[in-house]
């Protein structure tokens, strides 16, 4: 059971809050930290709220970094942050290609 009102301390502005973390969607460290304080404690929630991990690389570059930032705000280990899911197609694929299925 996860208490979403548990006290994680206040949001303290940091000197590097304008550092871009998700390059594909240009989401900054400050936005991620702030989102945690607005209640987004898990990777799927952060992704849906801010779009980090929704770009062309689908989080390949930023997921690890975002996890670390979320964990730091929650005062837990990075490995304890609930991960986001992976879905196909795992490489961006044109509609014309995806629709072009080989005859069985």
């Amino acid at each position: 059971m996860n208490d979403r009102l548990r006290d994680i301390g206040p949001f303290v502005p940091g000197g590097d809050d304008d550092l871009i973390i998700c390059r594909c969607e240009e989401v900054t460290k400050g936005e991620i930290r702030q989102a945690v304080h607005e209640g987004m404690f898990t990777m799927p929630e952060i992704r849906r709220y801010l779009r980090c991990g929704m770009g062309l690389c689908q989080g390949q570059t930023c997921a690890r970094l975002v996890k670390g930032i979320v964990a730091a705000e929650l005062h837990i280990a990075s490995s304890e942050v609930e991960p986001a899911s992976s879905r196909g197609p795992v490489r961006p694929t044109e509609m014309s290609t995806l629709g072009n299925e080989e005859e069985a």
Partner: protein
Amino acid sequence: MKRYNLIVVGAGPAGLCAGIEAAKRGMSVILFDENEKPGGQLFKQIHKFFGSKEHKAKIRGFKIGEQLLQEASAAGVEVKLNATVTGLYPDKEIMVMHDGKMHDGKMHHYKGDSIIIATGAAENMVPFENWTLPGVIGAGAAQTLMNLHGVKPGNRILMLGSGNVGLVVSFQLLQAGCEVAALVDAAPRIGGYGVHAAKVARTGVPFYLSHTIIKAEGTDHVTGVVIGKVDDHFKTIPGTEKHFDVDTICIAVGLSPMSQLLKMSGCSMEDNPRRGGEVPVVDEYGETSVPLLFAAGDVSGIEEASSAMIKGRMAGIRAAYELGFCKENETENSLEKCAADLGSLRQGMFAPGNKGKLIEKTEEGIPVSMNLLTNGFVAEDEIVHFPGVTSQKGIHPVIECTQNIPCNPCQDACVKHCIKIGSHITSLPVVENPAPCTGCGLCVASCSGQAIFLVNENYEPGFASVTIPYEFLPLPGKGDKGKGLGRDGKPVCDAEIVDIKSIPAFDHTNLVTMKVPAEFAMKARFFKAV
């Protein structure tokens, strides 16, 4: 829709070895890789590999990739390159995009009785001010640019990360004709093999341990970088800033498994920092919680190519056994042998169990070189303690291999048995004294770490000769004059090239012999023309 006994995703060392073992036991095997060349990370490894003969030591990485592909084809594995597996679906079904060109791409469906995912890992990034400027790239990406496409990643480069990737790629950047301004790591000690660091340090690249990047400079591309020293909490210490003019910053801060296909399958995953991140929960053969779905190689835990090959073999054998393609006792023997091989690789100073630990003495009781760990080169007063370093009359090998790593090609290279490691593969190499050395140089070329030199302290009155491994172009010419550089890359004496030897047996490791004043026989370890 075609159905195979085994589908393998990834034609790297793990995937190819898995396919080989399965096909040898009669399974129908199809193997997919999204790249146009096989071998995974192997296809861009131009350096010689470590280990023993069984582990393909002394062979250059890209050759191992080609060899494995030939073995796989010979065993009957259907290998499809330029084939991207876009998803793993219920019923062990995959979708593959063949020949992914804009309008010719076609999607194919395949089903497997078993599937082995061997998709490897991708590079980590570390954000710092202006890290999104063009010119900040992964070390692996730099390697692909140079070694696959023949393109210099930049002209003047700073490398962040002193693990094997950072060290090896730094050397390859030098080989490609780039300048490496500095090698930086926030850790207090070098993470990779000492010999990889030493061959970079002796060319003059400075190492900055306990330093981190503060910011990159530039408006639309990198023009410079500022680093600073860090304290015990990895916070930068004001006043320690150092600036370098560079156009490229290479990031080598570790890899994360590319486990997307496994996650799609719904198998149990765990976030294990010691295995590199999100990995599937697997048994000792690599089988996940989904029966007959396996993971092998870096995707199940970051190690390196030799372990990946063995893990691949184990998964292939196990899949064959579970589907009735081989009998129990044959399987057990094969799997036990693999486990033993894997065990022998995971020994020594860099064993997974030793990660993060400060090893202060070698297995032989010799103090490990702290200077090597913090500056990238063994200090003069430290090198004399090692059994590979002796002072003798006449030409003899000087082996500056100072860490226990599982590696022994030098022992087999010398037909006169000058070099001894013994059955314990991590033991430090010992040079016989006196050594019946003929100066053939095979040992120098056989050392993947480029840590063996031939020294003749009595070459000429007042002069010694030092034969160094040389993998740079252009080669110096006989009679060229220049400077001998010390292990720290600083010029220590005048030097003249007296011989250059390049024979097929050396496999592109040229032997360059320089004449130096006698007192520098144990000091000069690299050559720079003036």
